[in-house]
């Protein structure tokens, strides 16, 4: 565990040749795991630039005849732009509203006192134990009653509150000192103002984590949109991709082009903000 305490002076044995060899072995293993994690994407990116014949025949990683045909074909033949727009619209809406609802409820559960608060909190938390499959059918019926079947909002509306998000935000807001709030109240600030100018700025770190978590969960959501959204003009990206299996049976050139356009933007964003992504995902575990 030498790396965890940079402040400590390295003990003499750490710099010994034996230690260096050991570190080398660790690097070889981690390098191998990194390649295992990364290689399929690299292959996919190059495959998407190969003509179909070459893709199924050649053994080389790099394309011999570079082509962008796959991309033009997938963009013209299926409603790719529509699916991208649907996915972005629903993921952004869900993320923004989830952040607002989670932080407002986190604030109330952390800093307010009212009768039945803990009971209410436990009641909300208890919904996390119920597997999604239990509400799959009843929720579909509810969405039908609300006339939202095959509408993007039928997918969005079920994600506007996040029990996990409330839990996460409460955990963080517990440590905000009451003095800040009282000082603002004495100065005559309304609770809305306190929420937007004190609570939210003090909670940007858990909110960034929750935002990334909510965005990815929604972007990747499959079962529920599969049930609610049926027509191509309402499809989200995962549904469109899954549909490529039957529209373009074993057309691996199409598949790789579609997959590249779905994954590469996320990977690029990740490359610049990986710290927040990892923290966001790790928070789900450490605090949960």
């Amino acid at each position: 565990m030498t790396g965890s305490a940079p402040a400590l002076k390295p003990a003499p044995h750490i710099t010994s040749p034996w230690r260096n060899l050991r570190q080398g072995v660790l690097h070889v293993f981690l390098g191998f795991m990194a390649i295992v994690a990364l290689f399929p994407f690299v292959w996919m990116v190059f495959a998407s630039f190969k003509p179909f014949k070459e893709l199924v025949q050649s053994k080389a990683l790099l394309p011999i005849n570079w082509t962008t045909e796959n991309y033009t074909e997938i963009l013209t033949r299926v409603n790719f732009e529509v699916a991208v727009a649907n996915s972005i619209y629903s993921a952004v809406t869900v993320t923004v509203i989830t952040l607002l609802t989670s932080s407002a409820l986190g604030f109330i559960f952390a800093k307010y006192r009212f009768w039945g608060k803990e009971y209410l909190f436990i009641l909300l938390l208890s919904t996390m134990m119920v597997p999604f499959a239990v509400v799959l059918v009843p929720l579909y019926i509810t969405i039908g009653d609300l006339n939202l079947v095959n509408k993007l909002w039928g997918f969005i509306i079920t994600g506007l509150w996040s029990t996990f998000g409330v839990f996460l935000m409460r955990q963080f807001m517990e440590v905000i000192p009451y003095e800040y709030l009282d000082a603002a109240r004495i100065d005559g600030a309304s609770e809305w103002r306190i929420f937007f100018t004190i609570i939210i700025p003090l909670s940007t770190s858990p909110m960034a984590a929750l935002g990334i978590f909510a965005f990815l969960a929604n972007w990747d959501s499959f079962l529920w949109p599969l049930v609610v959204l049926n027509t191509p003009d309402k499809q989200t990206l995962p549904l469109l991709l899954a549909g490529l299996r039957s529209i373009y049976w074993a057309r691996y050139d199409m598949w790789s082009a579609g997959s590249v356009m779905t994954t590469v933007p996320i990977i690029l964003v990740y490359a610049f903000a990986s710290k927040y992504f990892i923290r966001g995902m790790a928070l789900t575990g450490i605090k949960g």
Partner: protein
Amino acid sequence: MTTARLASGSRRGPAWDWVRIRRVLRKSQFHFGVAVIVPTLIWYFVFMFHPIFQAFRIAMVDYKILDPQNSPFIGLGNYQKLLLNPLFLVSIKNTFTWTLYIFLFMLPISMLVATTLSNVRRLRNLYQAVIFIPVVVSLVAVSLLFRMVMDPEVGQLNRMLDFLGIPPFKWMSSSRSALAAISGIAVWKSMGFYIVLLTAGMLNISEEVIDASRVDGANEWQRFWRVTMPLLSHTIILVVVLLTVGSLQEFTLPYVMTEGGPGTATYLYNLLIYEEAFTHIRFGTATVAALFQFVFILIASLIQIRVLRPNWSY
């Protein structure tokens, strides 16, 4: 703390109570609270509590889509129908096998990588970031990717095996290897998440405890089993429960990769629920199946937490 004082009871009689209530009603806190709590309660009622209660009702009726009000009550009839469905036992067996595979692949790999990461001195964050990439990308895209890579004829995986002189393997097109192959993909997709959890847990173990064991002459192996593992037990409980709950509910991978096939080799429990509900339009049996899953997951997690909970503290 104004809110605290307002919430505590008064000893000055009902008239004072009324004054207090009126004062609360004028408070900004009250308006804010109502504006947040009321929509929350409505949403939770419509999209959580009501559906959960409905599930118990739907489980006991022969649900008629076109005329739901007149769905006849059939009591345990849906339970009977589900138990008579031959796919019920098949999907349970597959789901248990699937969960077992996930555990067998995931725990050793993620423990090994996490131990390595917590011991490496340089580039730890870079390695972690790269290993984490599969976690953030779309699962459906990953499914398509591996259907290409694992294609028995043209896939890269068999090309590589061929290069190493190993005969080609059928991966997902053989019912004997399909479930294991897909569980391998599931492990590849989410190992980064568990590695991050375990690494964070390992780096949290205080340096003093490790040093103490070093002074006491423990070797690396002893230190791992006698110091690291026990001190990691909270993280391990979390990993085990999350893995179990997730594996028992797996849907997307088998649905996109094989649609339960070849035959019924990868027909997992959630595929059964989905097909009962939206292919055969049997809402009652689908919901009964989901309730079974609910009870099972609840009991399984409680047992795991009880068994794995450390009986010490420091």
